[in-house]
C-alpha cells in the first residue's frame, strides 16, 4: 500500500512537471574537434551567447560534438530525435556531416537548420533549411566581379571534399554563362604538407585568375604556393576563407586577394542603406565583446542568424501546437516557409516551399585584402 501511495504521488508529481517538458528543445551538432573544428568552435561560441528564452518559452539547447565525422553526426541526430525529442536540429557546419544529418531530420520530420551550404538531391531537403548562402549565390558574386575585371580563364584549386566539389559544380556553369572558362581544376587536402605540384600545374595552364576553395587558415597554404610560382593574375577565395586566419597565416602573400563573403563580417564598412547592416552590428558587438576584437566570423554569424529565424518562426508555430509534438515541428516548418522576407546578419532570406536556400543574388560581398584587413570592393 505504502509503495502504491508513493508511486501515485510521484506520478502526480510527474504530471505536474509535464508542462516543463514543453520547453523548446534544440539539438546542435557541431564539429568541435576534427578538421572542421575551426568552423564549429566559433559557431558554438555564438550559441553560448544565445538568450535563454524564445517567445516566452524556455530554451533548452543540447550541443554535441560530431568530430567532423559523418557517423558521429548521424548518431548525434538520432539521439536528438529519440532521446531529447528536439523541436529543431541545428548543424552541422561541416558539409560532409550536415548531409547525413539531413537524412535523419527528414525521416523523423524535424526541422534542420543547416549551418553549411550542402547540396541535397531534389526532394530530400523538405525539412532542411540552410543558414549560409548557397555556393551559387556566392559564385554569382565572384563571377560578376571577374567579369568586371575582364577575366576570361580561371584555374580552380579546391579541397578534395564535398565543399570543393560543390563549388566546382556551381561555379563552372555560372562562369560559362558569362564567357569565363575553368581551364584547369586541381585538388588538395587541408593537412597536405605541400601543394607545389598542383600550383605548378595550374600556373603552367596560365589562367587569368585562380579560385581557391578552402576554409580558414587552410586557405593560406595553396594561396602562398600559387604566389610562390610567380602567378601574376588575380586570386579569389570563397566565403569559408573569409576569416582573420587567412591573413594571419598568409601574411603579405594574400595581400590583394579577393574574398567573397556574406555582409556580416564587414558590417561596419557597409553603407547605412544596406539592409543587413544593423542586424550584423548587433551580432558583431556582443560577440567581439565576449571573444575579443576581430573575432567575428562567418560561422558564428550563421549561428546568430539561426536564432533570428527561430525568433520569428517560433511564435507563429506556437499558435498552432505545443513544443515537443509532431504538430509543432510541422508548424515550425510551415512558419519557415511562409514567414517571408527576413533580414539576417548575412543578408536577406526568403525561404519558400520550393526554395530552402533563400538568399537573394545580391548577398555576396567581394572583399579585398588590403594591409592585412578587409576592404569592401
Amino acid at each position: 500500500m505504502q509503495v502504491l501511495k508513493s508511486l501515485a504521488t510521484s506520478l502526480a508529481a510527474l504530471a505536474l512537471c509535464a508542462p516543463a517538458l514543453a520547453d523548446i528543445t534544440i539539438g546542435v551538432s557541431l564539429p568541435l574537434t576534427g578538421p572542421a573544428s575551426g568552423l564549429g568552435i566559433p559557431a558554438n561560441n555564438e550559441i553560448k551567447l544565445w538568450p535563454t528564452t524564445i517567445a516566452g518559452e524556455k530554451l533548452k539547447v543540447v550541443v554535441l560534438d560530431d568530430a567532423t565525422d559523418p557517423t558521429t553526426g548521424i548518431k548525434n541526430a538520432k539521439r536528438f530525435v529519440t532521446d531529447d525529442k528536439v523541436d529543431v536540429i541545428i548543424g552541422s557546419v561541416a558539409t560532409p556531416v550536415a548531409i547525413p544529418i539531413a537524412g535523419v531530420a527528414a525521416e523523423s520530420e524535424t526541422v534542420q537548420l543547416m549551418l553549411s551550404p550542402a547540396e541535397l538531391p531534389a526532394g530530400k531537403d523538405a525539412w532542411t533549411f540552410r543558414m549560409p548562402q548557397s555556393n551559387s549565390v556566392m559564385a554569382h558574386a565572384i563571377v560578376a566581379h571577374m567579369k568586371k575585371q575582364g577575366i576570361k580563364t580561371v584555374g580552380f584549386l579546391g579541397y578534395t571534399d564535398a565543399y570543393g566539389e560543390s563549388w566546382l559544380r556551381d561555379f563552372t556553369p555560372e562562369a560559362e554563362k558569362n564567357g569565363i572558362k575553368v581551364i584547369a581544376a586541381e585538388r588538395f587536402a587541408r593537412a597536405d604538407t605541400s601543394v607545389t605540384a598542383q600550383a605548378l600545374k595550374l600556373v603552367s595552364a596560365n589562367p587569368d585568375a585562380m579560385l581557391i576553395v578552402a576554409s580558414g587558415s587552410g586557405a593560406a597554404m595553396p594561396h602562398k604556393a600559387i604566389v610562390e610560382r610567380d602567378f601574376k593574375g588575380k586570386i579569389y577565395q570563397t566565403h569559408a576563407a573569409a576569416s582573420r586566419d587567412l591573413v594571419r597565416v598568409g601574411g603579405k602573400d594574400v595581400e590583394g586577394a579577393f574574398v567573397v563573403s556574406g555582409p556580416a563580417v564587414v558590417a561596419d564598412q557597409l553603407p547605412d542603406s544596406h539592409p543587413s547592416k544593423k542586424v550584423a552590428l548587433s551580432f558583431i558587438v556582443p560577440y567581439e565583446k565576449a571573444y575579443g576584437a576581430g573575432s567575428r566570423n562567418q560561422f558564428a554569424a550563421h549561428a546568430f542568424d539561426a536564432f533570428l529565424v527561430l525568433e520569428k518562426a517560433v511564435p507563429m508555430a506556437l499558435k498552432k501546437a505545443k513544443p515537443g509534438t509532431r504538430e509543432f515541428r510541422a508548424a515550425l516548418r510551415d512558419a519557415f516557409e511562409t514567414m517571408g522576407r527576413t533580414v539576417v546578419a548575412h543578408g536577406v532570406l526568403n525561404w519558400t516551399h520550393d526554395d530552402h536556400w533563400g538568399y537573394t543574388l545580391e548577398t555576396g560581398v567581394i572583399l579585398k585584402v588590403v594591409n592585412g584587413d578587409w576592404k569592401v570592393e
Partner: protein
Amino acid sequence: MDFSIVSILLLDGLTNGAVYALMGLCTVLVFSVTRVIFIPQGEFVAYGALTLAIFQTGRVPGTVWLLLIMATLVALLDARLHWQQHRNAVGALAAAARSLAIPAAICALSVWAAPQQFGLLVQAALSVAIVTAFGPMVYRLAYQSLADASSLVLLIVSVGVHFAMTGLGLLFFGAEGYRNPTFWDVRINLGPVLLKGQVIIIGAATLALMVLMWQFFSRTLYGKALQATAINRLGARLMGVSTIGAGRATFAMAALIGALSGLLIGPTTTVFYDSGFLIGLKGFVAAVMGGLQSFPVAAIGAVCVGLVESFGSFWASAFKEVIVFTLVLPVLVWRSLSHGQSEEH
C-alpha cells in the same frame, strides 16, 4: 611536362621525402627496440611546430603544462614503484625528484622565457626541449608496464595515445593552423628551380641527423646497447642492458627527431594540430617498405613516397593520397613472397 617542371617536382618530392624519412627512421627505431608501432610519431611533429608558433606569439604553450602534469604523474608512479620495492620513504622521494627534475626545469625555463620574446633560435631550442621531454614520459605512462605485451596490444595502445595527443593538441593550439617564420631567408635561382633557405636546411638537417644516428648506433656504448635490445631483448637484459632504460631513450630520440622535423616543415606549410598524423603515416609507409627493421631501405622508401606524392599531385591531385598509400600494397606482396611466412611473436 618539361625539364623545369620535372626539376621543381623533384625538389618538392625530395623535400617532403626528407621529412618522411626522419619519420620512417623513428618508426623503425621505436619498433625494433620496443616492438611498439608508434602511430603518434607524427604528433611530435605538430607539437614541435605549434609549440614554437605559440612561443612566437609570446604566450606560454599549453604543452608546457601538459609536460608538468605528465612529469608529476611519472614522479608519483616512480615513487610508488620504489616504495613497493624498497620500503624506503627517502629513496622514494629521491626517485620522484629525479623524474621530476628535468621536466620541471624545462617548464620553469619556458614560463620565464615565453614573455621575453627571445630570438627564433632560442624559442626553437626550447620547443625541441619541451617536446623531447614528452618522449620518455609517453613511454613511462603508456607503454612501460606493457613492455612484455604482444605487438597487437602495443599497437592498440598507440592508437589510444594518438587520439589523446591529437585531442590535447586541439585544446592547446586551437583548430586553426600556424606557419612559422623561416630560419634562413635566402632564395637561390638554379635555372628553373627556386632553392629556398628552408629547403636547404631540411636537406642538410636530415642528412646530418641520419649520419648522427648511424654514428650513435655504431660508435657509442649507449647506441650499441639500444641495438642489442633491438636484436634480442632477453639477451640484452641478461647482459645487463636495462630494457626500460632502452625504451625511454628510444622514445626520447623519437620525440627529439619528431620535434626537429616539426621545426623543419613549420616554415614551408601550414601546420594544424592534426597535421602530424598524415606525415607520420607516410613515414610509416616508408618504414613498412623497410620491413620495420631496415633503416636504409626505410629512408629510400621515404624519398620514394615523397616523389610519388609530388608527381601524383601533379598528374592526378584528386587521387594523391590513394596513390601514395596504394604504394604499400605491392611492397607487402613482394615482402610476403620473398620472405615467406614469419612466425607471429
